[in-house]
């Protein structure tokens, strides 16, 4: 093939196979899984397909580790291979593996066909990798859509449940508005600077001083903020988050909460800290204001919630606000703090969502907080990870969440945004009310009578289950993989809270890769 290209004198881009290998692994995995899902055998569909997804993600992760330390452009400058990309690639792979484990026995893949479910998941991950590696406005949009569209479908995979379909549709419509806005903004940026490449944009902004006040540019920046802010659940563009998170199948909610946010922040960091770094004094204050608003809205919104998924949705809005503070300061410290918090956030959230998945299957209460009542006495293996996750999200010491918040406040104060540090802390104060409520339910409330009885497993071809929740409850051993995810990430939260240095090293490399001050 290379010969043909060379022979026909078309100048194709130099292809760095090694650099692209993680991406290729994921794409290949998606294709294979899709094909494999067509097989009739149940064993293949229910066991081989998820296993293969995990395998391809593991391979991608391994390749990313192998490539660590490389800093080069891929595909003629469309994508950038550096530690930022690789760190986030690893993050996506971990999130993906966890999601596959959580959906192993879930009703959603069964209803939507395993092959398609996992292929969509892998494709979305591939899109995320493209997004965070993007160095070019077009790649940004490409990655953005590639990650979003599979997610629209994935949200609706629990097809017999109305709220799942509703969430998918809502995500589709609102997401399209967001994508359109982003595209509009990117187009304006191109129009103002005459280039789509980040480096070229930065060059154009650096070269001409009055470009910085060009209305075309400013509108472009504004629209980009809106479009990306929508994806990252920044207020006031956050309103899709509670409904979509609550309606979607819980493993997908977990995936969205963790990976989509990481992807969105990855590209925000790249776009604003590489392309638009010269006008950081222009976009800093409005982003800070949005961050403050997000923190407040997210935290107060979570206060009255009785649905755990909705509570965690609002909480993720608030956490997005915290992470935005790291973006606002436009410094290396801020970049590192945001990346650190993204990883820590993944760990904390996956522990929490794993417990929710487990309880959804054990009780008929769905994701209501009451499903956690009495967990401390009856299921310590689920109680402790959830407790640790809640404490970490609230920012209590000895958990990774504390270190993350500390880092963010450090970056904020260092970047002369001390007031934003105060907002982070005020947000944490308010968040205590709902995180502690969850912990109180686990340890301080007696178990509901209905939660202790095991519900019989319905045969696959029987009447579909209409209520949102109990599809199977065959006891703890059958959910080993879910409990395992919960325990692993719960332990990791504590470990990272006590020895965070390895993560600090990773994040520092990523920070150096972008070359910020």
């Amino acid at each position: 093939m290379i010969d043909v290209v060379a022979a026909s004198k078309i100048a194709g881009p130099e292809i760095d196979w090694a650099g692209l290998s993680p991406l290729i692994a994921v794409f290949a995995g998606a294709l294979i899984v899709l094909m494999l899902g067509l097989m009739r055998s149940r064993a293949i569909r229910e066991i081989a397909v998820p296993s293969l997804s995990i395998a391809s993600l593991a391979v991608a992760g391994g390749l990313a580790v192998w490539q660590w330390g490389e800093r080069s452009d891929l595909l003629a400058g469309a994508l950038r291979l550096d530690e930022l990309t690789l760190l986030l690639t690893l993050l996506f792979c971990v999130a993906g593996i966890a999601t596959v484990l959580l959906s192993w026995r879930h009703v959603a893949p069964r209803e939507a066909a395993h092959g398609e479910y996992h292929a969509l998941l892998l494709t979305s991950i591939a899109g995320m990798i493209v997004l965070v590696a993007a160095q070019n406005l077009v790649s940004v949009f490409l990655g953005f859509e590639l990650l979003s569209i599979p997610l629209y479908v994935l949200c609706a995979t629990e097809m017999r449940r109305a709220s799942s379909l509703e969430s998918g549709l809502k995500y589709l419509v609102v997401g399209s508005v967001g994508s359109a806005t982003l595209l509009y903004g990117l187009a304006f940026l191109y129009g103002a600077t005459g280039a789509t490449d980040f480096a070229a944009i930065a060059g154009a902004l650096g070269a001409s001083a009055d470009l910085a006040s060009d209305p075309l540019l400013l509108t472009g920046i504004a629209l980009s903020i809106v479009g990306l802010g929508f994806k990252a659940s920044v207020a006031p563009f956050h309103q899709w988050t509670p409904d979509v998170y609550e309606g979607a199948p819980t493993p997908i909610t977990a995936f969205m909460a963790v990976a989509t946010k990481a992807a969105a922040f990855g590209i925000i960091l790249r776009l604003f800290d590489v392309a638009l770094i010269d006008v950081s004094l222009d976009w800093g204050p409005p982003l800070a204001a949005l961050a403050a608003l997000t923190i407040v809205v997210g935290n107060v919104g979570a206060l009255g919630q009785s649905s755990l998924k909705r509570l965690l949705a609002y909480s993720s809005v608030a956490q997005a606000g915290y992470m935005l503070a790291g973006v606002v300061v436009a410094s290396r410290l801020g970049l590192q703090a945001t990346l650190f918090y993204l990883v820590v956030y993944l760990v904390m959230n996956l522990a929490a969502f794993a417990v929710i998945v487990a309880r959804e299957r054990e009780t008929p209460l769905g994701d209501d907080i009451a499903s956690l009542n009495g967990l401390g006495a009856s299921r310590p293996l689920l109680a402790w990870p959830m407790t640790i996750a809640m404490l970490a999200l609230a920012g209590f010491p000895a958990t990774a969440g504390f270190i993350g918040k500390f880092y963010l406040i450090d970056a904020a104060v260092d970047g002369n945004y001390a007031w934003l540090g105060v907002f982070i802390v005020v947000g944490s104060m308010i968040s205590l009310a709902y995180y502690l409520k969850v912990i109180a339910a686990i340890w301080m409330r007696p178990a509901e009578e209905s939660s202790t009885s095991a519900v019989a497993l319905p045969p696959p071809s029987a009447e579909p289950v209409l209520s949102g929740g109990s599809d199977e409850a065959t006891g703890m051993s059958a959910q080993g993989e879910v409990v395992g995810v919960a325990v692993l990430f719960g332990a990791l939260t504590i470990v990272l809270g006590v020895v965070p240095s390895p993560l600090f090293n990773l994040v520092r490399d990523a920070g150096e890769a972008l070359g910020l001050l």
Partner: protein
Amino acid sequence: MSQIGYMIMAVSAGAYAAGLFHLMTHAFFKALLFMAAGSIIAAMAGQQSLDKMGGFRRSMPFTYGCMVIGGLALAGIPPFSGFFSKDEILLLIGDRGGWYWGLYVAGYAGAFLTGVYTFRMIFRAFWGDPVPEALELEQGHIHHPETHTNPATGEVEDTDVGFPGPEHHIAERETSMKLAMGTLALLAIVGGLLQIPKVTHVIDHFLEPSFHESALFEREPSGGLIGFGLILGTVVGLAGIALAYFVWVKNPGMSERIRERSRGVHTFLVNKWYFDELIDLLVVRPAQWLGSFAQQTFERIFVNGLLVGGATGVVRAGSSAVRAAQTGFLRYYAALLVAGMIGVIFYFLLVV
């Protein structure tokens, strides 16, 4: 109380050793007096009122002796300990000169009154006609009432929960009491030897390390003043005893006649100068009012209502607002998104 007044007067005037000396001797004779009083009260089956006592001299000789020793020491009669300690205080006060002479006079006036009241008590309790309880005791039997009632309120005692009970111990019968009172009596007699002016300086030496830097500590009053003080003290004390004897032994009924004629003054003094009522008005009532104000009003309204309730109220209001905006309808989400977008655009175009 009045002896404490002497001690404080001494220490305030710089007569530290004298104050401490009086503290010491006062401990001896006052404790002795209290024990003796307890012995009599026991003989009276818990009755403390002097009005009901009389004539215990024959039936309680030991108690009587102790009380007399204590009384003589208290009144400041030589050679008892109280004489030396009280006199030293007044000596050093007079030595200061100036307006301290007023205190000097007041001190001796107090000594006179001390003699009067101490021996009033002794004469009324031990002299005169024996009361029924004393007569009973002369027969060899301590008085026991049928049902035990609280002498002050008349309430029937419940010995099960800690009232004194029917046991009454008098000094004449208990060896332990005799030992204690005897020791104190002895000390009350000889205690004065510690600090005889110009002769012994035990307390002075004891306090020297603490007070050697004080200007007032190393004073030596003149011999004339010492002699004058010693004689005056003796005379004043004896005069007080004599007056008490005159009023309560020689002329029975005289105290009632005096009381009749000065009814107002008597009422004022019997009610303890209405001092308790004054304290109640000035201190206790305001404190109680302050307490109920704090409990009822302040805690409820300010601390819980404003600080805690206010903060949580604001947060809850915010929460309702945010959740109310989540209508569930896409059109509103999109509308708010567009509104936010316009807001951001306007910010960038107008402000930046």
